[in-house]
């Protein structure tokens, strides 16, 4: 099979397509409006922070983008592929780290990654190569035979990131990946994902409610009560809000102090 395995080749993306393009997205749960006319565009190589308080609609957006359930209005395209019509094409291009831990605690790191590879139709041999690459990159290679139960919270998160990259996606979606971690592990994970973004040209959508996870020069989308209040580069958003810092911009736009 070698590198000709279509499950692993560099994906042919539609030319000029954004990594993620969401437009006119509205979603209701019963009478509650979770997302209201949301538009977001993320480009290859962008590290974009989706900033919003708990309940702002971040997880709903992730559920729709990963097609846990369908959007009824609006469009979601991943590298030009509609998530509903071309879901298989769209889903091979994204790697996801969910908010809740999703690893099998009683299985080893390697077994967890093999399972994920199988779900993507990757052969056992290819999966072994890929997992060794990814675990080396996340400095977990010597833990590969450990059970997840034996790992710390930060290590588990890094395993989940490695897992999300097993099938060589072009975009990484992370939903509050630092929740429950200490400050040191938080920073490790952030640095790790930022370097992935730089080195591989991955598009990254990083959802958080913590404002200090934003760096200057990055892209930010502020979501509140299902509406996008501002989107663009950090400086641009500050300028729109007429403030000097992103923290003040958030406070001005949302009307509440952000969490740090």
């Amino acid at each position, binding site marked *: 099979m070698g590198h000709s395995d279509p499950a692993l080749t560099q994906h042919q993306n539609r030319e000029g397509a954004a990594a993620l393009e969401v437009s006119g997205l509205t979603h209701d749960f019963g009478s509650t409006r979770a997302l209201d006319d949301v538009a977001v565009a993320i480009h290859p190589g962008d590290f974009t922070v989706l900033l919003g308080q708990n309940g702002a609609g971040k997880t709903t957006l992730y559920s729709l983008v990963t097609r846990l359930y369908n959007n009824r209005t609006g469009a979601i395209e991943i590298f030009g592929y509609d998530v509903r019509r071309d*879901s298989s094409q769209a889903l*091979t291009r994204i790697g*996801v780290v969910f908010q809740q831990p*999703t690893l099998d605690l*009683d299985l080893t790191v390697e*077994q967890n990654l093999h399972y994920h590879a199988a779900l993507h139709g*990757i052969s056992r041999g290819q999966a072994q190569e890929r997992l060794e690459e990814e675990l080396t990159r996340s400095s977990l290679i010597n833990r590969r035979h450990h059970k997840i139960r034996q790992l710390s919270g930060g290590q588990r998160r890094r395993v989940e990131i490695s897992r999300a990259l097993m099938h060589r996606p072009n975009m990484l979606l992370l939903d509050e990946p630092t929740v429950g971690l200490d400050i040191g592990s938080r920073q490790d994970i952030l640095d790790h994902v930022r370097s992935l973004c730089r080195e591989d040209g991955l598009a990254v959508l990083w959802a958080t409610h913590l404002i200090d996870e934003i760096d200057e020069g990055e892209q930010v989308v502020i979501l509140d009560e299902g509406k996008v209040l501002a989107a663009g580069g950090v400086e641009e958003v500050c300028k729109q809000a007429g403030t000097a810092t992103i923290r003040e911009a958030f406070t001005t736009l949302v009307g509440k102090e952000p969490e740090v």
Partner: protein
Amino acid sequence: MTPIHYFRCFVGIVWREGLRFVHQQERFLSAMVRPLVWLFIFAAGFRSVLGVSIIPPYETYITYEVYIAPGLMAMIQLFNGMQSSLSMVYDREMGSMRTLLVSPLPRWFLLVCKLLAGVAVSVIQVYAFLAIAWFWDIQPPLVGLLTVLPALILSGLMLGALGMFLSSAIKQLENFAGIMNFVIFPMFFASSALYPLWKMKESSLLLYNICWANPFTHAVELIRFAFYGQINWLSLAYVAVATVVFLGLAIYGYDPGRGLITRKAGA
């Protein structure tokens, strides 16, 4: 995605279920203890109370233990189907169902793989039970051990699909006690697992009709006949249709467009 990708995915899902099974020895132990308690204790106490006349597929008088053995095999599968449905709900909260559902392969295929993996585990449990029951004089003709396999696969599919549908549909599936009360007990007791249906008919015609309509009854009868190298065509047809219906409902339940998970996720 080509057939080889589908195949690797299938192998991966079954392999994971197998690993989980190996690691959950407690679950295996309780899956064994449950039917053995019925066989060793309950059946011993009831053998003198309940006389079982000669009804097909039996050709001679049989002990009560022999009568309930097929019902206990089906019970193992019933528990297994409900347990995996419960673990699916639990998994979804923990998120590992989501890991499964972001696979680029079609969702119906992922659900069927998951179902087959659960059936494989339940079949292993049934044979482990039979190995012990052999020493308790549950000794079918040897060929019966082979002919019962397809029956176990089909009944396992039916019960697993039912569990999967319930996991997508019912919000209050938080604990196993609820499933015990509302699914397992009614299905098990209103069936031919513990008493032949003609006995039920003597007590109440309505109850007899309910028992007759219960898909679990037909799973038990399918297994009972297959255990003696025979086919109960009516039960086979009933179980096959029920499997298709439950599986259809489960796939509907997990469909991202129409399914019930949409409403559920918003709750």
